[in-house]
């Protein structure tokens, strides 16, 4: 079987779900004839027609609102944000309409909102952001953030089948950089369950998205120094697999959280607080963080490199933590 990229895995997930369930429809900007800015929906218009692959005007509020409305009719729309940064233009729909619908009056909103996020491709301040915490902080939403083609496909399928609104963040740096052979048969990856990417006994790194790869590289280097790192790929950020994190921390007694999102108000803070509350006795050192710096995402390559967490920084922090 041929290896597929993450973007191909996403396309396959959409295709298979549309084939499986005629209530699945796609809506977004330039997703039809053009196949999407990153070609995630390429070929789907030809296959499923104008009614199921809906090109819209430039209207993030419109797209998200229409997706909600279609879901109230029993459909399962998948809305694409051309770049996830533009979800800010539909923010109100997400946090006030979508997230609160079921809680307030029992109106489930089984929609998926997906789009490319993340830096490292010199996209600048408006095409590189990691907006996960805007939504993790909003009760009622689920947020997934895969790091492999397998997970991208399996999580997207779970997201489409889930009765809740799911935001699927797809790191654009990973779209075509990671390849993997996928099973031919239908499979899903459960929401709310982390994956242990590399087992280890000395220290836990909890991470997600593109920094999973950086953390694995770091773990490889640290292994040469005799530090055995356990790397957790969180995969779902809301609801967070707190048990999975605590289990690993109870084993290794040390936790480093790595993410590409900025530091202040990032997921690392929430994880540190959870571990502090529930596994303080098990800790042999402080919970440390390696994150982006608290600035907008700068454009020029040396600036962006400074902004983003790097393998060297992860290695340094892990070494420091290992010394405790």
């Amino acid at each position, binding site marked *: 079987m041929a290896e597929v990229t993450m973007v191909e895995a996403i396309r396959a997930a959409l295709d298979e779900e549309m084939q499986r369930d005629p209530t699945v429809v796609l809506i977004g900007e330039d997703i039809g004839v053009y196949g999407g800015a990153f070609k995630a929906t390429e070929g789907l218009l030809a296959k*499923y027609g104008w*009614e199921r692959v809906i090109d819209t005007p430039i209207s993030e509020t419109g797209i998200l609102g229409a997706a909600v409305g279609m879901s109230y009719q029993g459909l399962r729309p998948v809305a694409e944000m051309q770049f996830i940064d533009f979800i800010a233009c539909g923010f109100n729909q997400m946090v006030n309409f979508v997230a609160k619908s*079921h809680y307030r009056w029992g109106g489930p909103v089984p929609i998926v909102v997906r789009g490319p996020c993340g830096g490292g491709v010199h996209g600048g301040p408006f095409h590189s952001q990691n907006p996960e915490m805007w939504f993790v902080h909003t009760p009622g939403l689920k947020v997934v953030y895969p790091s492999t083609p397998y997970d991208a496909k399996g999580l997207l399928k779970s997201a489409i089948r889930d009765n809740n609104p799911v935001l699927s963040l797809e790191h654009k740096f990973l779209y075509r950089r990671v390849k993997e052979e996928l099973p031919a048969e239908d499979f899903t990856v459960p929401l709310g369950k982390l994956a242990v990417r590399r087992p280890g006994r000395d220290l836990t790194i909890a991470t997600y998205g593109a920094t999973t790869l950086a953390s694995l590289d770091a773990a490889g280097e640290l292994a040469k120094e005799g530090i055995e790192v356990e790397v957790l790929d969180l995969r779902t950020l809301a609801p967070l697999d707190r048990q999975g994190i605590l289990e690993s921390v109870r084993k290794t007694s040390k936790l480093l959280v790595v993410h590409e999102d900025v530091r202040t108000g990032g997921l690392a803070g929430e994880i540190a607080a959870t571990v502090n509350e529930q596994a303080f006795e098990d800790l042999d050192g402080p919970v440390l963080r390696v994150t982006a710096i608290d600035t907008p995402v700068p454009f020029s390559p040396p600036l962006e490199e400074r902004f983003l967490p790097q393998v060297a920084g992860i290695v340094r922090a892990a070494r420091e933590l290992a010394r405790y």
Partner: protein
Amino acid sequence: MTLPEMKYPLSRDQLLQLYYYMKLTRELDEQLVRLFRQNKVVGGLYSSIGQEASAVGTAYALEPKDWIAPMIRNVGGLLVKGYRPRDILMQYMARSGSPTGGKDGTSHFGDLKERHVVSPISMLGDLVPVMTGVAMGGRYLGQKVVTMTWIGDGGTSTGAFHEGMNLAASQRAPFVCVVENNQWAYSTPVARQVRLRDLADRARAYGVPGYAVDGNDVVAVYQTTKTAVEQARRGEGPVLVESKTMRMRGHAQHDPAAYVPPAMFEYWKARDPIARYEAWLTEHAVWNKKVKAELDSRIERELKEETAVAEASPLPQPEVAEQGVYCDGCHVIQAQWERPVDEVQPPQASVEAVWTVADFGGSNGQPQAPARAAAAAAGEPPSSASRKFGTDHGKPGGSATLARSKARAKPVPAARRRAPSGRPKGRR
């Protein structure tokens, strides 16, 4: 009984029903004020006094299968849709028996399964794209449903309203947007919000029909809205209806509306929708004193009973606060298919994924000669689905998307039926 000629005739029972709903709305309003004064209402209280014809007449133009999303001054629409006064009373009193179990108040509730009501959120404008989506979804499933929401004069200045209307127009969604121009947005008069006298003219920006109607004349409201609803149902796309009325109270109970010139209240008081309709019913001999008295006492009796039921409902248990964030193992909304599902699956659904551009966008607005020929020759064939259903299920660039004159014009000649300038067409 000799009635004036109506495009959409109303029977005597229907005419009396319109009165019933309007009067019930007003009496419910007054009842809520009493409860408010007794400190039984939790939070703010919003009145729709003066706007009963607007909410009732518009909602009455819908069929049971159609969808609404009410704003705070559309209690009348909720009553038409089958909600009872107790539902609204309990919402305002935050009781456990309210449709949201105390999770939200006012008109913020809905019912996807039976009544087809979508709950609003407070943020003005966002219902417009949402109800556009409900309309698109209904059409996709082959239902002939129309969706409707209301928005205030103030709400039409939001970006969400614009995005929603434009999206609805571009998708030709069977959606009716009622702009309730009650002259005020909180303390700001319309003239300070927008440089249009008729908010119906906002429709022109989207290339859709816009009708203005006397919002205090319930029969006129019904007739105009029905025209809009049937247009939308026929697949001609969204319609905007401006209902000109007046908010006869402050923005909410706390607001004495001191900024409204007294003469303006006087002007509109003389045009009170219920008093006017009462006179109309008498003039056309639809009822007599006895019938009116019966209706009024029925309303009084009902409200008394409904209030007792509402007041008997306890406040919710605190632990309810923790429930229902996610819909896990909860009910699922099953799509109601009214067309063969095969039509949306390959191979039937498959198309050639190309745009047909009939107009190259030259400055004179006319297509280049070859394009004009192509557009005319193409004759805008419908999709396979539309041939069976007579609507085009929202494929882009369907026919008749051009702005229409207000009165429905004669059939537009084929050459003019091409998509507007620069607008790509989905099919050859």
